[in-house]
């Protein structure tokens, strides 16, 4: 993508009367770090980037922003929030519209067609992070890693993030402004992660998840980063009734992870953020993708495609499968 064009467009957008700020990506402080940027003027817009390192899903900030009660007599600020989205992120926006978590009038969606992002862990393992800022660019058949002025060509297969291998919608599905031409879609890879667990027997799966969930430290990063975990009254925080005890042990961890995966069934748009931020490296994506697959195969529903769709768990079809019923 042409960065000049991106910055120019962003500057135009933030200059608009009806736009409060723009959320995009900018360079972090060292190595491969990329930080979210909240841009209010042309100066800020000049910092924006879009590179294979912009893996984070910024749509979570739409609901993460704290809405304090207004002092009496003060009018609410109804200006729009502009947001840069990749293909997967755009589905989160659509799903938020479906759930009425945000209003269409409240956002300006800036679509960035996405050729695929880099798996940060793989990258840092092969090409350790430098103290100075490094850069990564797309090339015709992979990535160009620039560290301390030294350029390395890497094939796409080597570093592509898992969620991008599986991606079916790299082009934003909803946007007000589209930056650049749509990218060519690719054949999604087979989901080996889910299959690996799926082919175990029931006890094998329990053993597998027991090992994984035992590592969970209940930091709730997965919930907080998720664009669709924005319930003001999350069951995990509730004391009465206490759905999940606060104790960190296998039983409660499992209950928590089941509860969250269940709440995301038919809503998760597979942006992979939960798995990316998990400090315990729990393969949460497998859980969510498995549910997404079931919803797609059995119920013919995919979240985040159609803003007019009915929410999956708050609707039904008379001919939903019922082969499991006695």
């Amino acid at each position, binding site marked *: 993508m042409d960065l000049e064009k991106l910055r120019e467009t962003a500057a135009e957008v933030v200059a608009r009367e009806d736009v409060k700020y723009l959320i995009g990506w900018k360079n972090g402080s060292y190595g491969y770090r990329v930080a979210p940027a909240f841009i209010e003027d042309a100066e800020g817009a000049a910092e924006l980037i879009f590179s294979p390192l912009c893996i984070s899903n910024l749509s979570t900030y739409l609901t993460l922003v704290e809405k304090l009660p207004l002092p009496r007599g003060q009018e609410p600020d109804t200006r729009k929030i502009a947001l840069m989205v990749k293909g997967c992120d755009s589905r989160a926006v659509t799903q938020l519209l479906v759930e009425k978590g945000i209003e269409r009038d409240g956002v300006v969606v800036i679509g960035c067609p996405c050729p695929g992002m880099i798996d940060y862990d793989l990258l840092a393992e092969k090409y350790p992070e430098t103290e100075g800022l490094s850069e990564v660019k797309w090339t015709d058949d992979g990535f160009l890693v620039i560290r301390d002025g030294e350029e390395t060509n890497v094939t796409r297969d080597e570093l592509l993030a898992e969620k991008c291998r599986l991606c079916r919608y790299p082009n934003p599905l909803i946007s007000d402004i589209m930056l650049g031409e749509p990218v060519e879609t690719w054949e999604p890879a087979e989901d080996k992660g889910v299959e690996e667990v799926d082919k175990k027997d029931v006890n094998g*799966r329990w053993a597998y998840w027991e090992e994984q969930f035992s590592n969970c430290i209940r930091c709730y990063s997965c919930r907080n980063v998720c664009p669709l975990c924005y319930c003001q009254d999350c069951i995990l925080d509730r004391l009465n009734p206490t759905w999940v005890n606060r*104790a960190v042990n296998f039983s409660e961890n499992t*209950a928590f992870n089941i*509860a969250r995966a*269940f709440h995301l069934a038919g809503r998760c748009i597979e942006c992979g953020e939960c798995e990316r931020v998990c400090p315990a490296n729990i393969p949460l994506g497998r859980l969510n993708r498995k549910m997404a697959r079931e919803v797609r195969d059995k119920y013919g529903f995919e979240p985040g495609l159609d803003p007019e769709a009915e929410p999956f768990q708050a609707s039904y079809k008379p001919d939903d499968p019922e082969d499991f019923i006695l």
Partner: protein
Amino acid sequence: MSANNEPNIVAFLCNWCSYAGADLAGTSRVHYPSNVQVIRVMCTGRVNPLYVMNALQQGADGVLVSGCHPGDCHYMEGNYYARRRLGMLKDLMEFVGVDPRRFHMSWVSASEGHKWKEVVEKTVEDAREAGSFEGFRRRQIDW
């Protein structure tokens, strides 16, 4: 699971069909296993799928949710919602490694006392085969 290898079953029954069906089984003196603890709810649509998880966590070896046949719901569509949500939950639990024999759902109408007996027998039998589910029990800390 009690000492003599009898599974504990928690059953959520809707007020209008399955609860009445179980009642009919009782008044008709149909014999069925006594392992079932019945919890009456107004509608299966009211059964939060996490109840199932919670019951397993708190000592149940098997869970049963039963309501009106599709189309017969007292509230018109509650059981349709339940079917979708609990079907998903069953898939999820299976993927996490909870034995699918631990959770069943059924449609039992107010006139189906005999079907109720069959459903209970099946649920108890399955839970017995699946065995005690200690791994998932809530850890209680004794201070």
